[in-house]
């Protein structure tokens, strides 16, 4: 299941604006890679290029290659819908479908993929909710709307929804930034569990979080206003936080940035 990602010389543009300059980096399977860096340096942009989500934005364009176990997701014959089925995504703001029940939210992806068997859907629903550490809290109200949960529960519901389709990769864009510390810890624990099965890339502004959950950390930075963001360095998380090879990284993680 879990697959390896190789980003090769990726440049990303919003219309004429060059947002990200030449990023090259590899994400090993069954590991957590954290993207850190100041606001506007292109973390979300790079993350969204990994499942072709940027194509939702008019004018956004990616040059370069993103290889999933060696296969370029930007190859001419690849359908972005297929890409997104195998590379799941969790967003900054929890976004369960408000008109759907908790159960329907979890199995929404399977339904889209054409699974109709009720028994199978129920099994996956339970397994995914257990996987997202939400089962005990919601098992008695699976038919209630997903919007009725707390923010932290909604975010775990979104994770359950993402893992229900058993993707190869899980992308998370600041999944805890709207949550309280306890829910954050719950999600961090969950990420640590999920990496047994998935390749995970997470964007975070929280250094401790990056240090706690990730195996590898990539630091992005901006050369200046209006300049494209770029990857400064990527290394083992331990090394980045103890002995980074770039001065800019050290300044940023020690809070001496800017």
């Amino acid at each position: 299941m879990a697959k390896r990602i190789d980003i090769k010389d990726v440049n990303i543009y919003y219309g004429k604006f060059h947002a990200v300059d030449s990023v090259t980096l590899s994400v090993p399977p069954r590991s957590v890679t954290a993207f850190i860096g100041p606001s506007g340096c292109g973390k979300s942009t790079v993350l969204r290029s990994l499942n072709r989500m940027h194509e939702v934005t008019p004018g956004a364009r990616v040059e370069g290659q993103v290889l999933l176990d060696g296969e370029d997701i930007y190859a001419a014959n690849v359908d972005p819908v297929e890409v997104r089925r195998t590379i799941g995504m969790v967003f900054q703001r929890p976004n369960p479908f408000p008109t759907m029940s908790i159960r329907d939210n979890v199995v929404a992806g399977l339904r889209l993929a054409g699974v109709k068997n009720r028994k199978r859907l129920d099994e996956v629903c339970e397994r995914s909710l257990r996987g997202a550490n939400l089962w005990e809290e919601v098992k008695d109200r699976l038919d209630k709307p997903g919007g009725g949960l707390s923010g932290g529960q909604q975010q775990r519901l979104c994770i359950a929804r993402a893992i229900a389709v058993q993707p190869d990769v899980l992308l998370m864009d600041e999944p805890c930034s709207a949550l309280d510390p306890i829910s954050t810890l719950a999600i961090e624990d969950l990420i640590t569990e999920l990496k047994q099965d998935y390749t995970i890339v997470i964007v975070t502004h929280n250094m401790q979080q990056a240090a706690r959950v990730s195996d590898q950390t990539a630091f992005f930075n901006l050369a200046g206003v209006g300049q494209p963001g770029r990857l400064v360095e990527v290394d083992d998380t331990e090394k980045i936080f103890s002995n980074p090879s770039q001065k800019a990284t050290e300044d940023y993680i020690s809070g001496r940035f800017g």
Partner: protein
Amino acid sequence: MSDSTLADRSASAQETPRRARVSHGTLEPSRGGAASSPDTPEGPISTANTAQGEPASTPVRRPGDRVFRGAAVGSGAFIVVLIAAIGLFLLLQAVPALRANQVGFLTSGVWNTTDPNGLQFGILYLLWVTVATSVLALALAMPVSLGIALFLTHYAPRRLARPFAYVVDLLAAVPSIIFGLWGIKVLGPTLVPVAEWLSRNLGFVPLFAPGNVSIGGAGNVFTAGVVLAVMILPVITAVSREVFERTPKEHIEGALALGATKWEMVRTTVIPFGKAGYVSASMLGLGRALGETVALYLILSGTNAAPKLSFFDGGATIASKIALGSGEFNNELTAGAYIAAGLVLFALTFAVNALARTIVAGRKGSA
């Protein structure tokens, strides 16, 4: 008149605050003003009297606030009074005629008002034609509007969407009389083969059976419904478009990230989000169709016989019947008969608009 209720009310409600704001430069947020005084609708006047020289007593209330509030309450009350007055006017005028009526107004369909001393008027046939044309129009316009609105918001390339939306809006600006002329002279004759085919092949269904007027003349409910559909299309499209446009980006991206195709995304997020708005937009359109007069006056061929419950019969709607009868208004009693019919239309459009509002309010409550 009927088309005015919803749209005009909201327009005037928006206008007043804007005027108040301009005249005062600043607009303070109200500070508990609403709870503190049992204001009468004559707010603006009393405000003007007490504004100067008032000691800094109980909660501070800025003049701007008071004028704003007074104007809002005043205009709101004015509208309510106006509507009540119209209703009352219709009722008072109708009562003498209803007393003199020799058939049951709500149970009969004949309309014979040539002799003021032997008035016979019932609403049934008019009501049937009114409802049939409007509902047919709605049934035709709803799916088309939905398609156009979804196309404009989620499928059309940006460069195309704007001008196309503009063209649809332009359709709303075409006067009804033009639609009427076009309907009876151009569209009706074009539809005749369709109508003939339908009545030949589906004639066993009462709705498609031949009526009292010839299908070749095109002056039937079918033509009227199609023309009305074109007329209400822009209203439904414009309102639905705005609702669909407001689908939260998070939901759209959430669906796409799960591997939804464009249509699946629209089905799982845009439509559920916009459903209530779309339904109430359709109710607005229905309200407009029910009250449409001139176009139907031109299109429908009159008949005195009891109408068949068929799309291919003629007749008159309540509104077009009133327009047709304008020559008889010099007699109070006869006029009263038409006013009674107007009252039914008034109640009908009012109910439809109220229904639209309830649906919208229900959605806000649940979201």
